[in-house]
């Protein structure tokens, strides 16, 4: 084999602490290496041309590039060698940037380590064989997890693009957080007026199948051919018969059920439709509060229901959906602000969250759109807003900025003045982050036209004084302490990863950051992709986002899926396990350990043997380390290839 080695400077990223010319010189002495050079930017067009030319002029039949991580440019260089007529697997990459130059400053030590890494790659390459992909059929259906505004947008875009869409929503209605909002910034248009029609479109679109009150139980398969087990949670109501008339709600005697939709402002009935615009508009029973399900007594809804759809014996049901791509749009949850002792840790009823306030402002909310203090129902005069509750605060483990609280606080201050012209709003803020289109103008309006008093500083304490609350904070612009009498305190609670986000990520085999937000494929260039082929992201599951950004991502993820499905067949990854039938003794151990069920038993001239189903194998390599005979080998990572790397490194 004639190997060419290309050592990249990456500008000064590598050259700064690695003597790349010395690495190239050393590489010329390695077995099989016929050509070695160092180049400024190997990934650039002239850099790639240099590889193509060298392959042709030097008749190279293998290439090593020593540069960045393979996650960055392995695909790039595989295409380059392919362009020069080589098989893409006759290429190896040595990571001398992330693994060497970025992590050490000692130029000599770095250079030596880089030489070792290149030696390993060249040694492995000597054992590489050309591998060819197979084409396989794909299932052009898409699963969208989460029916908030991002998921709705993705579903409608995919459906309009002609795809069959399966939308799975955890709660009994789609709409997500946006459905709970009264108005939206910076236009102050009614949230349910703009979202409602979209929700109806989802319900009526012939290409969309909606599983509400359902969760993802299991995900198997791979890009193009996923199999997803969906758990349809028991609603105790036959939704095929339920017409959403709501008579059951008027008669249900259990009226103290937690009202999740209204964020706990007020109570609801055990059998309920969460809000008037719910999609699907179907009733479900909250088993925790239902007298019939808890104590076996009652049964009023069953008697009263005109269509006879109540079924107390209903069980969770499982359906399996076969899809080719998955979009995760699972959104966010509110930060649990009760860790803040200085805000009363939940002891004072008139300290509420911004989303609770939003429900109070909403005409279809529990107070009919009237702002009332939860403690005594009185209209507040002074409303104090506190921003950055669970945002930009290391002490509660939330150092990141949620990004949209500045805007909704300005909106709520404006709405407060609209609802109660005699009221006065005060806003404690750290900085005003209003970086979107028409956003800064909007916050100025809150201050200038709606008389909201903005105070730059944090609140150190809230405590009851008579029937009001005393809010004490700092005014850092004036350098003074401020004390305000408040009737209502609204906390601009930040966003955190949704409950269960980590478990779902593990089912989808995608990664998440230390706060539980899903990791995009690349922070700039792959914002809606993940590192798992066929799984995409939309909305706040990737990081807190306002409505315009969530909608943009929903559309972007849909575009990615439509692009993926524009091909009729996908190419399989040939880096899969293969069974050497001569060595296989048919013990079956590999079948037991394979986490993907990718190995089946076959009969070979009357003998039991194992066989890998190439399209299912994920190339994890567990079977290769299990096989007592060394009969299963992972292509591109065979024992010989790995041992040759070890030998290259441990030669002394």
């Amino acid at each position, binding site marked *: 084999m004639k190997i060419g080695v290309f050592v990249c400077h990456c500008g000064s990223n590598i050259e700064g602490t690695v003597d790349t010319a010395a690495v190239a010189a050393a590489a010329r002495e390695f077995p099989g290496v016929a050509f070695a050079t160092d180049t400024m930017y190997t990934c650039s067009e002239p850099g790639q041309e240099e590889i193509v030319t060298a392959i042709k002029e030097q008749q190279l039949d293998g290439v090593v590039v020593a540069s960045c991580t393979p996650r960055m440019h392995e695909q790039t260089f595989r295409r380059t060698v392919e362009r020069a007529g080589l098989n893409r697997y006759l290429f190896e990459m040595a990571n001398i940037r992330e693994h060497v130059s970025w992590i050490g400053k000692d130029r000599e030590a770095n250079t030596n380590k880089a030489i070792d890494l290149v030696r390993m790659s060249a040694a492995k390459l000597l054992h590489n064989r050309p591998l060819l992909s197979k084409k396989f059929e794909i299932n052009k259906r898409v699963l969208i997890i989460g029916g908030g505004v991002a998921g709705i947008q993705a579903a409608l875009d995919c459906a309009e693009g002609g795809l069959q869409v399966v939308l799975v929503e955890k709660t009994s209605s789609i709409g997500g957080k946006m459905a709970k909002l009264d108005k939206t910034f910076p236009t102050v248009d009614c949230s349910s007026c703009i979202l409602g029609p979209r929700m109806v479109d989802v319900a009526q679109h012939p290409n969309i199948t909606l599983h509400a009150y359902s969760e993802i139980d299991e995900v198997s398969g791979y890009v193009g051919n996923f199999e997803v087990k969906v758990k349809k949670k028991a609603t105790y109501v036959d939704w095929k018969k339920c017409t959403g008339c709501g008579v059951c709600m008027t008669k249900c005697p259990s009226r103290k059920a937690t009202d999740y939709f209204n964020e706990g402002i007020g109570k609801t009935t055990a059998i309920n439709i969460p809000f008037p615009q719910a999609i699907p508009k179907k009733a479900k029973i909250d088993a925790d509060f239902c007298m019939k399900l808890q104590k076996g007594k009652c049964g009023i809804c069953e008697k009263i229901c005109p269509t006879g759809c109540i079924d107390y014996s209903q069980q969770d049901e499982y359906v399996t959906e076969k899809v080719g791509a998955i979009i995760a749009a699972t959104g966010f949850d509110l930060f649990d602000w009760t860790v*803040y*002792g*200085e805000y009363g*840790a939940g*002891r004072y009823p008139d300290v509420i969250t911004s989303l609770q306030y939003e429900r109070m402002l909403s005409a279809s909310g529990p107070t009919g759109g009237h702002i009332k203090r939860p403690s005594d129902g009185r209209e507040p005069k002074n409303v104090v807003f506190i921003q950055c509750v669970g945002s930009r605060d290391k002490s509660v483990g939330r150092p990141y900025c949620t990004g949209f609280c500045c805007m909704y606080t300005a909106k709520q201050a404006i709405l407060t003045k609209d609802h109660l012209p005699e009221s006065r709003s005060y806003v404690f803020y750290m900085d005003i982050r209003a970086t979107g289109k028409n956003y800064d103008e909007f916050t100025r309006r809150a201050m200038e036209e709606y008389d909201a008093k903005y105070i730059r500083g944090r609140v150190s*304490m809230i*405590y*009851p*004084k*008579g029937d009001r609350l005393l809010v004490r904070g700092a005014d850092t612009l004036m350098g003074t302490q401020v004390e305000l009498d408040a009737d209502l305190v609204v906390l601009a609670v930040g966003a955190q990863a949704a409950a269960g986000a980590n478990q779902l990520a593990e089912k989808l085999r995608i990664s998440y950051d230390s706060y539980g937000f899903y990791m995009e494929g690349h922070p700039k260039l792959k914002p809606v992709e993940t590192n798992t082929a066929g799984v995409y992201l939309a909305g706040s599951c990737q990081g807190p986002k306002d409505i315009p950004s969530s909608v943009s991502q929903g559309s972007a993820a849909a575009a990615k899926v439509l692009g993926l499905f524009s091909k009729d067949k996908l190419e399989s990854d040939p880096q899969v396990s293969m069974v050497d039938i001569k060595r296989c003794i048919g013990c079956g151990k590999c079948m037991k350990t394979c986490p993907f069920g990718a190995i089946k038993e076959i009969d070979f001239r009357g003998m039991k043997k194992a066989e890998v189903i190439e399209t299912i194998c994920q190339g994890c390599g567990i079977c290769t380390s299990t096989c007592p005979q060394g009969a299963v080998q992972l292509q591109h990572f065979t024992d010989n290839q790995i041992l040759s790397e070890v030998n290259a490194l441990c030669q002394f």
Partner: protein
Amino acid sequence: MSCALSYAYYPGCSSTGTSVEYDMSSRAICAALDIKLSDVPDWSCCGSTPAHTVDHTLSSALSARNLSQVASMGLTAAVTPCPSCLSNLRTAQHRMKNDSFRQKVSKLLDRPADITVETKSVLQILVEDCGVDRIRAKVTRPLTGLTVAAYYGCIMNRPAEIMNFDDREHPMAMDNIMAALGATVVPFPLKVECCGASFGIPRRDVVMRLSGKLLDTAKEMGAMALVTACPLCQMNLDMRQEQINSANGSQHHMPIFYFTQLMGLAFGLSEKELGIDKLCVNPRTVIDALGMEGQPL
């Protein structure tokens, strides 16, 4: 709890003067609860506010000396009634986790600084080591009918990472003890507010305002008395109550007890050994209202 609790006892300077009743009552209730307190031999002042304002090394050296005195007793845990002393001990220990700082401190001392001794307040050992149940079991004369506000002051629980005791914004240790004694405890919202502390000397107006607010709020909440755990808080609220009244035009007559005094009363100890007569605002009417007449004092 069967095993006997034993601690080195560091009274602090206030205990020899302005808060002698805190010292007396702390010793008395610990004796009643079978908690052994052994005085630290030849202890010195913790340096209080002046030392750490002037020089951190000197301040830590003063505490380090006391800690090594404790270590020389062969005891591993020291207890002090005063949160300010405790704050200095804990801060010194915290700073001395830094090797170069510890070496600087050791240079000032005859013996190298010891950072292994565990330091706690009397309040902390009562709730954490002894336990409220054991306190409840000792009550012979419940404080039924007494409504109190528990006031912790600003440094009993803070900074949280150094003091590492109870909730930094909403402590409940004293509230729980008072409830165990049979008293009614109001949800006092200013339990960790500052009383004005040593500003009583250079800026009396600060104490008048801050301590005045504490008294106003306690009264509004319906408290008959305030319960404290800090000599300086107690002094500002008790000894300066008349000054506060004249500065603010208020008419408070609110007894300011150390929590240990009320524990002693509930345990049936005599007023004399609890130093009740040392309080400036006369607690007679409040104590008499408890209906303890006829019972041996």
